[in-house]
């Protein structure tokens, strides 16, 4: 009798010991099949000339090398991506931090309205945003040119055909979508800063701007590092905006490829031109560039922290 009972307890115990592994197993099974395996496979593919039907020729590292030598688009796409990273993804922090400082005030009215509205663009589908902005940017019938012409006397801008303007249009959309999101994150960070810091500075006679430069920004630095990291990772992968605004894969980023980003070129190469091997090589190069950019961010941040 007793022994039976112990056995039951024992097997229950061992079943209990296995239970947590069972609960977390879906992640590891799915990750092995849909994450790890294809990632490993993409290294393999990148060494071959590989069409939609399969491999045809071993290339070694030539898929990588050719991108830097004879490929007409790769370097241009990298340059475009870096330009858009600055004008589209990094610029927004110069709006988001001051906005968060303005919002970080207990006595402010309409706080919830501000926060809700600022957040809205972030959860909106990119395709919808681009379709609406296509109308707003329209050369003859869009609000943006209308306002620029009537209020500021500026010649109507050709947002979809003038290469610098194309980058401008993409940047405006990116800023519109992400400024509010960053503002909300900075606001959460600001709320953790003790008011005592400012009290002391005020007694020392520091003005508002001075206080923010010498107190707010240094204390916000870890969060700035975090948001900039997100901006870099996101900004290096821009595809949707380019696809919808500039005529799909065939558009190749519009006139003079002004909007051709590296992530877009990757997908174009693989899924429109059907060159999977070369596409995989682009993916790995892009990955390396992203890692380099985040390392630079890390370096700059720790320099600033130690100052």
């Amino acid at each position, binding site marked *: 009798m007793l022994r039976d009972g112990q056995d039951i307890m024992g097997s229950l115990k061992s079943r209990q*010991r296995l*239970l*947590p592994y069972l*609960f*977390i197993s*879906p*992640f*590891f099974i*799915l*990750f092995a*099949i*849909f*994450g790890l*395996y*294809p990632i490993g496979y*993409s290294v393999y593919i990148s060494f071959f000339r590989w069409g939609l039907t399969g491999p045809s020729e071993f290339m070694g590292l030539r898929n990588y090398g050719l991108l830097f030598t004879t490929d007409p688009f790769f370097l241009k796409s990298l340059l475009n991506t870096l330009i858009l990273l600055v004008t589209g993804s990094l610029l927004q922090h110069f709006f988001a931090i001051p*906005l968060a400082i*303005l919002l970080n005030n207990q006595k402010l*009215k309409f706080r*919830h309205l*501000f*926060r*809700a*509205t*600022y*957040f*809205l663009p972030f*959860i*909106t*589908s*990119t*395709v*919808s*945003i681009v*379709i*609406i902005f296509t*109308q*707003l940017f329209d050369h*003859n*019938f869009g*609000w943006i040119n*209308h306002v620029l012409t*009537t209020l500021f006397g500026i010649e109507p801008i050709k947002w979809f055909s003038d290469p610098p303007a194309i980058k401008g249009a993409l940047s405006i959309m990116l800023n*519109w979508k992400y400024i*509010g999101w960053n503002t909300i*994150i900075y*606001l959460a960070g600001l709320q953790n800063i003790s008011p005592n810091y400012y009290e002391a500075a005020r007694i020392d006679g520091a003005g508002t701007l001075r206080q923010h430069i010498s107190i707010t920004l240094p204390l916000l630095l870890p969060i700035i590092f*975090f948001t900039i990291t997100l901006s870099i990772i996101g900004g290096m*992968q821009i595809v*949707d905006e380019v696809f*919808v605004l500039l005529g799909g894969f065939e558009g190749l980023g519009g006139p003079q490829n002004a909007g051709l980003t590296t992530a877009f070129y*990757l*997908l174009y190469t*693989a*899924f429109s031109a059907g060159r999977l091997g070369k*596409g*995989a090589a682009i*993916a790995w190069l892009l*990955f390396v560039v*992203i890692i380099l950019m985040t390392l630079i961010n890390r370096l700059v941040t720790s320099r600033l922290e130690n100052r």
Partner: protein
Amino acid sequence: MNKVLRRQKLTKKYSSRFLIYLILFLFVFIFAFPFYYVFVLSSLDDSEIFTSPPRLFFGTHILENWRILFEQINFGRNFLNSVGIATLSTLFTIFFCTLGGYAFAKYSFKGKKILFTFVLTTLAIPPFLNIIPFFRMMVAFGWYNTWLPLIVPGVANAFGIFLMTQFIGRAVPDEMLEAARIDGFGELGILFRIVFPLAAPGISVLGTITFIGSWNNFLGALILLPKIERTTIPVALSSLRSQSGGGFGAIYIGTALALLPLIIVFLSFSKKIINDFARGSIKG
């Protein structure tokens, strides 16, 4: 003299406060106007859309545009596809991520720390890195042009497990689990009768994030589910926009419909979501 100084100070105070509100409301206008404008556009016919100066107020063609969208373009099926994919993704994600989160938060087992760190590390892998072989796999599985590649791979995702681990760790007291075990609840009974109910607020956050992410997913559907009658709203809209020689008002209704669930979800959750989003990301 003193009076004048004080008045100057007061004026300065009020004018700076006015300036703050002016700036904040200017951005409210910038962020909200496109949403308002798409509803205006969906009530106009083509000649009213392409007119100068552009229209600011509603027109009268909304029913006509609605009919074009649903009768000629057959947009209803794309709407249902989006609803179906987003709903299934959300339900399965909630289930599997709550399971995983519960295990990491409340069980002690060998290798837990390493396994959890591993889960978090996978968050750093950008999706473009595996998209090409993934596409080939989906073709080989016979999953190409089905809903499956947009649902299955993400149901036990690292972000969701992390979120639920954090949440269950805080929301489910250990004593309550102990008490339930002493009362003779089985482990699965505990899971369904205690953990899921107590984790409900966290589940609603994860559910919202998952639904919105799935609803907005463009690239995945574009590459893996391009067939127009099977695909989702964003892909359908993008292909309509590029082919269209007219019927723009109808496309704008579609665009507005693509926003509608988000706006509803957002309004019902707004305060909480914003707080949780912001808090979660700083911890992350």
